[in-house]
């Protein structure tokens, strides 16, 4: 029972979700809305488990003096400082602990940490792609075989649009690039998406029917 019950639950809820799609009746609709709400609520409890994992792994790292352990103090400091800001606020001229209203989210330090620490780091991490896209192009776009050559030529044609020294052949590249984006890409994407759709449907079915049990440790 202890081993079987999870699979029975998967089967029951999976089947319900499939059949509710065909039933437009009010009762089916309500059940569907409830189920969606439930998953987000359970997700928050999971977040607590997640934060616990983060904290314990970080402390473990400090205890065992793993590589770069000193920096783990910054993780803990950032975490607790931000939580502190998130629950304190200055309301009508008085600083206080605001566990019972979301004013904490309006705390100026909470906002500044978001604006001056989270946002710049996030944007910079994202912008590192400009470097990596160049190094990946250098490393991988080599005419090793037919497939690699096709990859290379298509990429070059797309990038040639930005070459101002082409003169009269410039528009030709532009046209070819547009064609590549609109015709073969459409075909390839459609083939990939049909395959993905099938793969997903098959995986979902395997999970619901209990054929695939690997996801729950067998």
């Amino acid at each position, binding site marked *: 029972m202890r081993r079987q019950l999870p699979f029975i639950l998967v089967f029951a809820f999976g089947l319900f979700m499939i059949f509710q799609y065909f039933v437009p009746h009010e009762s089916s609709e309500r059940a569907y809305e409830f189920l969606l709400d439930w998953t987000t609520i359970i997700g928050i409890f999971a977040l607590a488990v997640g934060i616990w994992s983060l904290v314990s792994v970080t402390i473990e790292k400090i205890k065992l003096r793993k590589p770069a352990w000193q920096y783990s103090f910054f993780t803990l400091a950032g975490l607790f400082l931000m939580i502190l800001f998130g629950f304190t606020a200055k309301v009508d001229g008085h600083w206080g602990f605001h566990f019972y209203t979301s004013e904490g989210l309006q705390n100026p330090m909470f906002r500044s940490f978001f604006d001056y620490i989270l946002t710049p780091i996030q944007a910079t991490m994202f912008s590192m792609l400009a470097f990596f896209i*160049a190094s990946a192009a*250098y490393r991988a*776009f080599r005419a090793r075989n037919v497939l690699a050559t096709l990859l290379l030529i298509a990429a070059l044609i797309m990038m040639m649009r*930005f*070459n101002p020294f082409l003169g009269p052949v410039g528009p030709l590249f532009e046209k070819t690039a547009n064609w590549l984006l609109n015709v073969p890409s459409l075909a390839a994407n459609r083939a990939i998406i049909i395959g993905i759709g099938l793969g997903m449907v098959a995986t979902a079915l395997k999970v619901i029917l209990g054929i695939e049990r690997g996801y729950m440790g067998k």
Partner: protein
Amino acid sequence: MTEALVVTGTNLGVVISLALIAGGVIWLLVRSLKGKEVERRVIFGFVLIAVSAPILFPITFHEQISPVVKAVFDKIESLPAGSTVAISFDFDPAMAPEVQPMANAFTRHCFAKGHKVVFLSIWATGQSLLTSTLDTVVRREFPEKRERIDWVNLGYKAGNQGVLNVIVSDLRKMYPTDVNAVPLDSIPMLAEVKAFRDLSLILAVGGGFPGPKEWVLYVGDPGNVPIAAGAAAVTAPQLYPYYPRQLIGILGGIKSAAEYESAMVDKYPQFDSVDKPGLRMMGPQTLAHMVIMMFIIIGNIVFFRSKRMRSQL
């Protein structure tokens, strides 16, 4: 090669950074002939310089105008001076960096040719962007053009394509007054314009819904008015099916805006001094793309040279 590169201002920084990139690439090419790989930090360094230099120093490239863009340019050129043209601002601040340069270039071009311009917006968010074009382009660069004689601002009207459906046959039903509550009948430049089908050209700048596509379907086709589109790069491909029959031309993305600005400078040298955001934003793009393409070529040279060297051993 010299013709394509327009270095505005004999700036030392420009010369140094371009020399750095060109010299570096030649050095790497020589190395690659010996089959030596380029270290990735060198690539990163080149990308950094290629992007930084045009931001710090104004390096712009002359853009070869493509036929879809040239069609719009030629249309505005070919209209007799004094024709009435409408420019619609159908976009929001997020899209503005890409499409507002187009709207500004259209405005300059129309005024330079002596056309009369009707400004309007069918996006609520377009109104403030329209105002900014009026302030930064119309009033500042063309102080001699008088409101309601040379141009008029109709402002925003809610109703999406419903608005278009009406103004194609009756402008005053939807817009009894302009944005300052002046009745249209007392506006001289609109005396002959009873509906949008009376216009010589409509320039629809935008990329979402409603946008150029709706202008074609609700105004261009039923009213038989030529329409040209300025759109964001992501939405431009969806407009191509309408070209050239229903749309006389399309500007898609910042590259097209830069091409238009280039063409403007060629024809009207007086605009060389105004801000050209399209061309300005193209600098880092062009240089970075060139650098990455160079590295792909170098990579292949290294690959084939080292393969040959290995087979010779």
